[in-house]
């Protein structure tokens, strides 16, 4: 098992704006090697903005983002993947007009080791057997759950050290949500560190080591997943109790 005291990702005091809109107001968070950390919060809290900033799609106005010992704030998105961060974006964003196989190939865009790519694709097919059955099919014809699986498989194809997941349960039936979370645990067990954004706080807290609660651009609570699951505030606001 990985050394959970080593910081893999450390965000310090970042502010992110969309024009004049101040979406992230000085948040700090960290993810240690080998952890599953979850970021929960209501609609519009800034969860996706945080992940998009880590991935380099947005640039923080100030503060730092350190990954694996290097400052990556302001590094371009297509470079960030090469550093070892991969994202499953909100709403899956699969390439609908390309085949399942081509989507996975795009996930491996930064790699040149043909054998390794083939082996990893096989691994993705083991995680998601339904994708293998549909590999020559246009991705847009997949069901919502299958598209989620494809987006996850695609993100794994770059062999990330850190996997960012933005609401993987969105729009899925309960049974499928359980399946997806089981797979997140499998991915984690095979050595990938995970930062999971969820509105489904129940499920997220059940698999995470630690958690942060985000409210309108600020982190209002943080702690181990157990602590947060037991906290009255969290129960009231996010666990429907």
């Amino acid at each position, binding site marked *: 098992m990985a050394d959970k005291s080593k910081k893999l990702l450390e965000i310090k005091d970042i502010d992110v704006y969309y024009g004049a809109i101040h979406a992230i107001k000085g948040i700090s968070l960290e993810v240690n090697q080998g952890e599953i950390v979850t970021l929960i919060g209501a609609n519009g809290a800034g969860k996706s903005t945080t992940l998009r900033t880590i991935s380099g799609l947005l640039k923080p106005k100030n503060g730092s983002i350190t990954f694996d010992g290097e400052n990556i704030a302001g590094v371009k998105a*297509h470079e960030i993947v090469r550093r070892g961060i991969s994202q499953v974006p909100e709403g899956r964003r699969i390439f609908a007009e390309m085949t399942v196989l081509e989507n996975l190939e*795009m996930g491996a*865009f930064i790699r040149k080791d043909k054998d390794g790519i083939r082996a990893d694709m096989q691994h993705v097919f083991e995680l998601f057997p339904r994708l293998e059955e549909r590999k020559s099919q246009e991705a847009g014809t997949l069901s919502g759950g299958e598209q989620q699986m494809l987006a996850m498989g695609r993100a794994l194809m770059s062999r990330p050290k850190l996997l960012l997941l933005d609401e993987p349960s969105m729009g899925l039936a309960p049974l499928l949500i359980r399946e997806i979370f089981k797979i997140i645990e499998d991915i984690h067990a095979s050595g990938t560190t995970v930062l999971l954004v969820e509105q489904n706080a129940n499920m997220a807290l059940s698999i995470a080591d630690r958690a942060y609660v985000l409210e309108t651009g600020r982190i209002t609570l943080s702690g181990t997943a157990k602590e947060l699951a037991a906290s009255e505030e969290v129960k009231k606001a996010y666990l429907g109790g």
Partner: protein
Amino acid sequence: MDLLTQIVQQLINGISLGSIYALIALGYTMIYGIIKLINFAHGDIYMVGAYIGFFAITQAHLSIVPALLISLVTTGFLGMVVERLAYKPLRHAPRISVLITAIGVSFFLEYTSMYFVSPTPRTFPAVFGDVAVNIGDIVINGQQLLIFGITAVLMVVLTYIVQRTKLGKAMRAASYDTETAQLMGIDSDRIISFTFGIGSALAAVAGVLVGIYYNSIDPLMGIMPGMKAFVAAVLGGIGILPGAVLGGLILGIVEALVSGFISSTFRDAAAFAILIIVLLVKPTGLFGKNTKEKV
């Protein structure tokens, strides 16, 4: 000649002209696909391609194939330079600014060319002599054979690049969703540059072929075919490669039939009339998908 022969003959003429439109339309549609820009300067890139081919043949005394290759490479490179200098700095600017810039680039290319090569039309040398294939009363001349051959080869090569190569797949991914493509490690700036290169190279070939077909080139020769090719791209569904080819062929065929059977006066009107009809019936173009509206 009986009517059927005449129709077939006009179809052949139409497909030749349509192939040219298709080659130009492909560039329009590829560039639109990736940065949502109607590149008004595309017709002028085609003109520059024609001139480069012209000088390669007349000054450097090259034969047609090397001349085509030189024009293709040089013009492709020119397209990349134009993108780098004129459009890249406007990546995050409002779309209208980029559109106006494209019009500016168009004038710039037209009038700089006039300065350097003079506005007088040049006679494109006959590269083929009088080769022609006769099937009964139907004539396919050497220029047409060349157009069919070159266009077919380019379509195969382009399809291969777009469907099979890593760069081509990255291009499709980035056209579909630039941001997610970046998350895959695809450098969208590089892909955009590459797309301008390919689109401009295809236009250059069209330019040289038109020079050979009509024997005459001039610095404003890109305006009308540029517009027609744009119509072709919209007709087929802008952003969709097979759509551009189909749109180009339809346009060419209609123009040939109208000039052959009605009057060439109505040729251009017919082209735009088709556009209007198609857009009324199917606003997204023949191959366009009605469902997806990307944000």
